[in-house]
C-alpha cells in the first residue's frame, strides 16, 4: 500500500503528465475544431519539433531551440495546409487520408535526414537532475515542463478568448460563410490556425524529447493520446482538452500504483467510459464526428 508521500508524488506526476498530454492535444483540437480536419500528421509534426530542436540546440541553445523549432514546424504546417484546404467542407475522410499520407511522407523525410537510429536531447543544465523538498522527490525538468505547459495553455486561452483574432477563429469554426460575408479572409485565417496548431505540436515535441527520446516513429505514439484527450474532453473545447489531458495523465500515472501493466490500457478504458456516459466528450459540442 503506497504511503501519503508516495501518493502525493504520483499525483504530482500525473498532473505533469496530464499537462503534457494537454499541450500535445491542444494543436490537434484547434485544427479539428476549426477546420474539422482530423490531422493525422499531428504526431509526426510533434516528432519533427523534437528533431529540429536536436539540430538547433548545439548551435543556439535549448531556449532558442524551444522557440525556433516550433516556428519551423509551423512553416511546414503552412505548406501542408495548401493541400489540406482542398478537403475543407468535404467528407472528413478526405482530410484524414491526406494528412495520413503526409504523416507517412514526413516520417520518411525524418528517416532520410536523421536516419532510423534514436537520439536523446539533453535538458538545460539548470533543470538537470532531481530535487528533494521534504518528502517530495521529483525531476526538476518536469517542473519546468509543467510551468511551460501552464504558460502555453494560458497564452492559447488568452488568444482564443480575449483577442479579436480568437473571436474570428471561433466564429470561423461555427459559421465560415458568415465570417466570409463579413469581409474576413477565411482562407488566410485557416492557414494561420493550421500553422498555429502544427507549431504547438512542434513545441510539445521539443518539450517531450528530453524525456521520451527521439525516434522517427515517436509521433505515431504521441498522436493516439492526443486523440484520446480530444475525445474525452470534447471536440472544439479548450477547457475539455485541458481536463481530458489531466484525467489521462492522472489515470495513466496512478494506474502504475495499482495495475502497472494496465497503464496504457487505462487510457482506452477511460475513453470508453466517457464516451458511454457523454458521447460528445465532457465539454464537447456537436461536431463532424457525429455525422
Amino acid at each position: 500500500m503506497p504511503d501519503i508521500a508516495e501518493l502525493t508524488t504520483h499525483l504530482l506526476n500525473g498532473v505533469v503528465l496530464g499537462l503534457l498530454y494537454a499541450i500535445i492535444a491542444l494543436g490537434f483540437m484547434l485544427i479539428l475544431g476549426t477546420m474539422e480536419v482530423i490531422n493525422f500528421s499531428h504526431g509526426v509534426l510533434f516528432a519533427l519539433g523534437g528533431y529540429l530542436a536536436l539540430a538547433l540546440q548545439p548551435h543556439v541553445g535549448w531556449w532558442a531551440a524551444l522557440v525556433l523549432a516550433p516556428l519551423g514546424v509551423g512553416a511546414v504546417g503552412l505548406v501542408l495546409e495548401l493541400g489540406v484546404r482542398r478537403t475543407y467542407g468535404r467528407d472528413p475522410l478526405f482530410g484524414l487520408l491526406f494528412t495520413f499520407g503526409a504523416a507517412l511522407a514526413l516520417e520518411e523525410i525524418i528517416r532520410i535526414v536523421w536516419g532510423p537510429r534514436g537520439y536523446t536531447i539533453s535538458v538545460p543544465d539548470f533543470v538537470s537532475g532531481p530535487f528533494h523538498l521534504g518528502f517530495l522527490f521529483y525531476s526538476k525538468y518536469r517542473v519546468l515542463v509543467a510551468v511551460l505547459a501552464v504558460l502555453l495553455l494560458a497564452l492559447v486561452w488568452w488568444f482564443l478568448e480575449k483577442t479579436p483574432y480568437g473571436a474570428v477563429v471561433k466564429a470561423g469554426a461555427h459559421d465560415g460563410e458568415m465570417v466570409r460575408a463579413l469581409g474576413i479572409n477565411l482562407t488566410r485565417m485557416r492557414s494561420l490556425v493550421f500553422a498555429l496548431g502544427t507549431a504547438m505540436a512542434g513545441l510539445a515535441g521539443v518539450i517531450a524529447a528530453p524525456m521520451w527520446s527521439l525516434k522517427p516513429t515517436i509521433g505515431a505514439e504521441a498522436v493516439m493520446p492526443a486523440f484520446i484527450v480530444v475525445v474525452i474532453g470534447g471536440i472544439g473545447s479548450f477547457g475539455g482538452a485541458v481536463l481530458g489531458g489531466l484525467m489521462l495523465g492522472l489515470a495513466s500515472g496512478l494506474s502504475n500504483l495499482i495495475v502497472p501493466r494496465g497503464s496504457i490500457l487505462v487510457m482506452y478504458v477511460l475513453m470508453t467510459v466517457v464516451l458511454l456516459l457523454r458521447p460528445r466528450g465532457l465539454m464537447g459540442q456537436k461536431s463532424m464526428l457525429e455525422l
Partner: protein
Amino acid sequence: MAHKSTTMRNGLTRRQLLTGAAAFGAAVGLIGPWRRARAQSGKPILIGLTCDASGTFADSGQADRRGMILAIEEANAKGGVLGRKVEPRWEDTETDASVAVRKAQRLIERDRIDFMIGALSSGVAAPLSDLAQRHGIIYFNSNSSADTVTNEKCHRTNFVWDANNWMFANALGPLVAKNLGTKWFILTHDYVWGKNATAATRENMKKVSADELGELMVPQGTRDFSAQLLRIRSAKPQVVIANVAGIEQTALREQAYEFGADKDAAWVFPQQDFPDMVTLGPKKAFGYFCTTWHYTVDAPGSKEFVANFRKRWAGAPIPVPDNVSCNGYLAMREMLRAIERAGTTRNHDVIKALEGHVIKDNFRKYPSTIRPWDHLVGQMLTLAKTKRETDMKEKWDMIEMIAEIPPEVAAPPQSLSKCKMEAIADTPVYGG
C-alpha cells in the same frame, strides 16, 4: 508358331517404338536434372533478410543487416557460393510479428528465397521460426534472446545465434549478488522476451539467495517511466534488474538519469544491445550488463573484421561492428559456409552441415558451437559496464569488459533442454 512383329501404320515396329520411348525417357531423366543443375548454377542464391528498420528495434535491426550484407559481399568477392552469386532480399519486419510473417511469407512464396535470416524481437523470431519449419526453409535467428526458441519452440530448421536469457541471467547473477547486493527489484517488458528474461532472473535469484522486493510490468509502447521510477525509489532496492529492451530501454534510462534514479540503486540490464547504448551516450548509458561481443575485443581475426566493417560502413550511423552486427555477420557467413560444405542448397544437407559445427574464427577467445540438440550457438559471454567518458578512445568505445565466461559455463547444459526437435525426415524438403 512364327513370331510376327506388330507393324504400325507408319512403318515403325512396336519394338522400335518401345526402344525409342525408353531411350527418350532415359535422356529426359539424365538431361533434365543436368539442365536444372546448370540453370541452378547460374541462378543466384537468394537470402531473405528479415531485419527491422522501424519499431522498437529499428536501430539494432539495421546493425544486424549491416553485418549480413558485409558477409554476403565478402562471399561474392570470392566468387560466390557453389559458384553462384549470393543475393539478399530485404524486408523491414517493423518489430511486428504479423508484419514479419506476412513479409516472410512473401519472400518465400513470391521471391522464392533459398534461406532466411534476421530477428531482434523474440516476439517476431518465434512466429518466423514456425513459418520456416512449415515450409522447410532454414531460418537463422540472428539476434533474439528468448529461451523458448531453443527449448519448447525449437525447430529443426531454426538456428539461434544470440546468447539467451538463461545465459545472461546465469552469467550476471553471482557477480551482482556478490558485489552489488541481494535486494533486487525487477522491471519486466510485457512480451515474450521480457517475461522469459524475468523467469530466468528468478531462477537465478534462488541460486544466489537474492530477495525480490517487487516487480513492475512495462507494457510495450511505454514512453513515460516516471511512475515506475517513483515506485522503485519507494521500494529502496540495492539492485534494479531491468528486463526492458529497445526504445523502451532507452527512454527508461533517459528518465532514470533525469530523476537521479541511476544513483539510487545499481542498475543491471541483463541483455544489452550496443545500438541502444549509442542512442543514450556514455552519461546516460549507466549500469552493468552482459554482452556477446564488442569491436574492442582483442581476439584472432577481430582487427581485420573491424577494419573491413569500418571501410564498408563508413557512413553508417554506427560505423563499427557491435554485438548485433557481429552476430548478423557471423550467422550469414556460417550459413554460406554450410552451403559450401553441403555442396547444395537442399535444406536437409545444409542442416547436417550445420549441426555440431564448431566455429573457431568467431573473433572471440573461445570457439562457438552450433549445438545439435537445440540449435543454440553455444558461445562465451562477457560481463561489462559502460566506460567513463574520460577513458573512451573514441565515441564508440563505450564498453568496459569486466570478466569473461567460457561457453561451457555460459551456455545451458543439455540436461536442462526442453527441446523436442522434429526429425529431419519429418521436415519438408526445401531447395537444392
